[in-house]
């Protein structure tokens, strides 16, 4: 009985963290059609923000609060200097952000060194029968759903969100109404980057901090968003649930690496069957 509870918890954890990490990309790719291969590096930078905070004596929570700000600002810079010249050129954006990703990994390695740093997990443990689970992982799960809910609310219940969704559908119309599409794109990209920074920061104590952190996640988050399809939040959540389930089930029966592989293979098969993604049946929306 305890084993079932712990396994269920583990599955929930895998799903929630996948959604948390993929959310920023869902916004950037889903709303702007930008294939940002440096997204995982935004995660990594969020993690490093927490590392910097703790190494200067501040608490993990400060780091987590700072991360979205830091990475969001970086997102603004990147959008202004690179991304905005490549709108509409999907493959070129892919290549440029790939170069950016390489550059960021290299720079961080030069500054911080290539080794993995650990961050002590705050909050303690709780027990389920014979098993000890970390309370921080509960926090991570809660954060995932909180951020998901907040993002959904932001896009669907605020004026900012309405403007963003309108720009996504028809930017000419929106500019005729007095809104600058360029600023909306900048803001959306910054928001997506901030989300990534937050995700990476929350996960930092659980994964460890290393410059190549992004490499472990880039394929997963991309495939999750793409399999999710055009209805961004619903699609990513569903894809996250399905793929997270596959990954954890296989990981429990063999090794974590095979879990990842199984998840990627399953995703490819899904894409083959549903070339538009899971939510491709619905119209494009949030």
């Amino acid at each position, binding site marked *: 009985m305890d084993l079932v509870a712990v396994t269920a918890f583990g599955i929930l954890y895998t799903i929630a963290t996948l959604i948390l990490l993929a959310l920023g990309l869902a916004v950037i790719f889903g709303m702007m059609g930008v294939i940002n291969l440096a997204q995982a590096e935004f995660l990594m930078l969020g993690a490093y923000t927490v590392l910097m905070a703790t190494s200067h004596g501040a608490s993990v929570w400060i780091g987590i609060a700072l991360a979205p700000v830091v990475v969001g600002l970086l997102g603004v810079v990147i959008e202004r200097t690179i991304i905005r010249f*490549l709108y509409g050129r999907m493959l070129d954006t892919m290549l440029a952000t790939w*170069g*950016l990703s*390489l*550059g960021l990994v*290299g720079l961080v390695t030069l500054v911080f060194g290539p080794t993995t740093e650990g961050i002590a997990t705050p909050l303690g443990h709780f027990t389920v029968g014979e098993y000890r689970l970390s309370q921080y992982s509960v926090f991570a799960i809660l954060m995932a759903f909180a951020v998901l809910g907040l993002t959904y609310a932001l896009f669907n219940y605020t004026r900012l969100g309405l403007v963003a969704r309108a720009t996504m559908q028809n930017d000419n119309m929106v500019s005729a109404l007095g809104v600058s599409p360029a600023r909306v794109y900048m803001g959306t990209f910054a928001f997506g980057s901030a989300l990534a920074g937050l995700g990476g920061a929350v996960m930092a104590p659980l994964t460890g901090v290393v410059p190549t952190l992004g490499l472990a996640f880039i*394929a997963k988050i991309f495939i999750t968003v793409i399999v999710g399809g055009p209805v961004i939040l619903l699609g990513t959540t569903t894809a996250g649930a399905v793929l997270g389930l596959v990954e954890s089930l296989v990981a429990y029966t063999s090794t974590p690496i095979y879990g*990842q*592989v199984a998840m990627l293979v399953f995703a*490819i098969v899904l894409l083959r069957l549903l070339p538009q993604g899971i939510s491709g049946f619905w119209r494009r929306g949030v």
Partner: protein
Amino acid sequence: MTSWALWAVAVVIVSALPTVLSLFQIVQLTVFMIYSLLALSLDLIWGFGGILSFGQAAFFGVGGYVYGIVGINSGSTTLALAAGVAGAAGFAGLLGYFTFYGRVGSMYFAVITLTVTLILHQVMGTTADPRYAVGQARLGGYNGMTNIPSLALEVPGRAPLTLDPIPFFYVVGSLLLLVLALTRALVQASFGRILAAVREDELRTELLGYDARGRKLVTFVLSGGIAGLAGGLFAGWGNFMNPQVFSMFQSALVVIWVMVGGRGTLYGAVVGTLVVQFLTNYLGTASVTYTTVALGTVLVMIVLLFPRGLVPAIEGAIRRAARRRAPAPEFADE
């Protein structure tokens, strides 16, 4: 200058190089030429097919590992090389059939090929345990497969003669020129023209009766085979093969080679590879990290400033400069 003359010049240059370069430089140039083959494979599917594939590194790796497995177990490196090409081509056929006939969009195709390469990276890294072996060839995990035999000349009735660096250089050079010549002939013939039509407007081409998916598949298999050839030669050159060939870095590098050299000319891919690799060497191989940052920056700059490639941009600039010197003819061809 006619193309025959250019080919003749190329052959003469390649033949003469061992007399002017040191042995070390010859060995370096050999691996650069092997890389050029890999870049060529991408230019075929991307520059002519219009299909961006991040998976050429995967075919390179498959070709290398298969060469290693067959080479170690059979002792015949010729068979091993053929097996490497066939294995890579077969893998490309599977992947291509799965994606092209599944009506997967071009951007998703790129992501899928990248994902497959990363999957291979993960999987091959887990094979450290000795039980992961095919026959006598241990896969070796992150350290990779070692003791892969060098390419040897096999004449029936005699013992195989392992190729020294200079003869190996000639073999690789001839293979590169041969593949280059054959693929250029292919793209200038009907096959290439129809492929260009598929690239420009796939639906229109299908409505004229052509099976676009089949043609894309054939092109992809060819490019996979060429990448596999490069992989086999690489394994024979260095006598090792490890999962690094499946890394993001390696996949990015192939794309950079082709982007620098310009897409759609085939020889541009060769030029791009040589330029990037020489530059990397010149900048110093002391730190992989500096190279990573430099390459990342180069990629971003090229996409922003020279989206059609560095070599075409330079060619264009030279042509414009030449035109300004001579009186302009009636109709410019730009």
